[in-house]
């Protein structure tokens, strides 16, 4: 069975064809040989019977008029039948009348005789056949003829026939091989081509290839046609998919462009609004200041309180405008990346906080050396926001600790600012970085809700990530990453 396991289809077809045709030819040869041997023998017997009849007919008068010479000359005509070795004519009383021997030296004695009821009989002894036949004349019999023939000629003919058959067997094998090449052309080549095409399609996902359609119009051609049709459908579907994807991409691009345009307009608007608000606000602030300093003696306590609140509101609004402008800048200013050290920035911020914000016991722990490749101004905004937040939310702690450091997670440097302040409810962690979203009330901790949004915008623009962990009363940690850090 291993014979059939491997190999190509053409090899199997060749082997199958040769096996089948070889078997058929061998069987045909054997059966023909047997049949021919039988037929040859039968033909010999038939020709013997015919010759006996002819000899008999030609010997009638010789027998009737006792002419042995005539009978012997009749018998001598048997010289033309080389397989007849001997012949004898007997008179009805059994006495030998005439005799013919192919080889005069041969000894020939009749051992078999016809019985009275027999007209003809064959005896086979070894390779010889003996025929006895009565000589009939006008309803009676005038004698009998016996002929001895050898079948050696039969054997010789069988041998010759075998030789011819072997030759034919060889020719048939050649024809079978030729037929196989035709089959290969008609069946195997198209199959191989089909397999090759299928391989190209699977490996390279190239649906534009087509299998060659075989010249014949059989199942194979149908298969190839179907395969090609299938490829065509796939190709059409592929093309449609490609087209729709391109369309989708274009639409996304259009939307993005629209969106970014709207965004820019919005930013420009908010910037101009914030910028333009500053002038009148400064005006209000100045007047409030004048009121507080020059005319406060003429006011009662309630009046003074109102002026204080006015100034406070104006101050808050100023901070809000600053934050909004920062946010706007963070979004729109081009990035000027260069190598900077975050630790230096953190330290300067910490120093400013300690010197400006009065008497508070805050311990700053700032790790040395945090080189990044980023925009210095923007990174300063980020750290000011984060450290400022930490400062703000630790204001109610007796001993506040603010830490800036970095750690390595999954081959990425993660910077963080940690405090032991009020913390936040982790359920709302995702709201932290949205603008104007605050987790603490204004009375608890003052703020605009824009700082973390600005930090988020800046880190995102640098291609980094920012996130926070923490819990209520257990402090908070703000992490961020910056690609190209330290390069």
């Amino acid at each position, binding site marked *: 069975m291993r014979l059939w396991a491997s190999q190509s289809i053409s090899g199997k077809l060749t082997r199958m064809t040769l096996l089948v045709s070889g078997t058929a030819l061998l069987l045909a040869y054997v059966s023909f040989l047997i049949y021919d041997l039988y037929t040859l023998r039968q033909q010999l017997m038939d020709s013997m019977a015919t010759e006996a009849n002819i000899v008999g007919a030609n010997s009638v*008068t010789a027998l009737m008029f006792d002419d042995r010479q005539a009978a012997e000359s009749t018998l001598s005509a048997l010289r033309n039948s080389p397989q007849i070795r001997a012949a004898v004519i007997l*008179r009805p*009383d059994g006495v030998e009348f005439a005799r013919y021997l192919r080889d005069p030296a041969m000894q020939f004695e009749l051992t078999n005789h016809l019985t009275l009821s027999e007209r003809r009989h064959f005896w086979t002894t070894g390779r010889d056949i003996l025929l006895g036949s009565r000589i009939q004349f006008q309803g009676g019999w005038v004698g009998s003829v016996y002929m001895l023939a050898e079948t050696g000629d039969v054997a010789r003919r069988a041998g010759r026939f075998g030789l011819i058959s072997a030759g034919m067997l060889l020719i048939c094998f050649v024809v079978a091989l030729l037929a196989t090449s035709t089959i290969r052309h008609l069946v195997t080549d198209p199959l191989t081509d089909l397999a090759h095409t299928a391989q190209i399609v699977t490996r390279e996902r190239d649906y534009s290839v087509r299998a060659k359609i075989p010249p014949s119009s059989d199942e194979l051609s149908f298969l190839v046609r179907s395969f090609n049709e299938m490829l065509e459908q796939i190709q059409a579907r592929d093309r449609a998919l490609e087209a729709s994807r391109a369309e989708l991409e274009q639409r996304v691009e259009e939307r993005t462009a629209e969106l970014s345009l709207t965004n820019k307009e919005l930013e420009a608007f908010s910037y101009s609004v914030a910028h333009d608000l500053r002038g009148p606000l400064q005006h209000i602030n100045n007047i409030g200041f004048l009121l507080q300093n020059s005319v406060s003696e003429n006011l009662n306590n309630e009046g003074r309180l109102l002026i204080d609140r006015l100034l406070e509101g104006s101050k808050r609004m100023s901070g809000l405008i600053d934050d909004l402008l920062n946010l706007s800048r963070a979004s729109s200013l081009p990035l000027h990346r260069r190598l900077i050290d975050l630790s230096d920035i953190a330290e300067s911020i910490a120093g400013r906080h300690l010197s400006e914000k009065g008497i508070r016991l805050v311990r700053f722990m700032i790790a040395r050396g945090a080189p990044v490749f980023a925009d210095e101004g923007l990174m300063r905004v980020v750290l000011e926001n984060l450290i400022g937040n930490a400062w703000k939310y630790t204001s109610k702690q007796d001993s506040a600790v603010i830490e800036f450091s970095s750690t390595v997670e999954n081959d990425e440097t993660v910077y963080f600012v940690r405090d032991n302040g009020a913390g936040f409810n982790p359920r709302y962690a995702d709201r932290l970085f949205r603008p104007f979203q605050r987790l603490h009330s204004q009375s608890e901790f003052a703020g605009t809700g824009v700082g973390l949004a600005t930090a988020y915008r800046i880190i995102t623009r640098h291609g980094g990530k920012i996130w926070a962990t923490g819990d209520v009363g257990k402090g908070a940690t703000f992490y961020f990453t910056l690609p190209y850090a330290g390069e």
Partner: protein
Amino acid sequence: MQRSFTIGRFRRRRDHIVRSASRLAATFTAALILGSVATPRVVAQAAKPTEYDVKAAYLINFGKFVHDSEEQESRPSFDICILGRDAFGQSLNALASNETIDHLPVRVLHPDVTEAKSCGIVFISSLEGENIREDLVLLGNADVLTVSDASDFLERGGMIQFLLVQNHVRFAVNLDAVNRAHLVLSSELLRVAFYVTGKPPIGGKP
């Protein structure tokens, strides 16, 4: 009537000559009669055949190889007629009784020569001498096969003449005489003839 009387006279005279000739028959090897178309029953009664036994058998056999080339009114029997002395004795009668020629029974007759024209075969004994010529003239061109053992039978216009060759009975044929009588002899018969004179008919018929 007178002619018939004459033949009868000659027949009696030739009696002893026939007997001396019959001695030759003793030298014949086997039962030639039985070589003719015979039944197994005949085989059983094999005996030493005489010369005239052989001739009798031949005479009947001749009938089987002779045909009339012209249409003949159907005959009730095939007659073998013996003119002059009958040297065959009982052997011819015995053989004839068991034979048919062309599916006709064989009869042995001793007619007058004038009545012999309707016979199939006429045998004229050699003892007839000078009468043979007369008999043949009388038979004329009648379709009768004439057979004799007279030594100059063929020269006189007879058709078949018995010969003795090395103690074997053989025969010779005069084809010219046969052709004159619209008779056809089978080539098979001619093949075993000792010799044949005359020419075969051109185109089968004279």
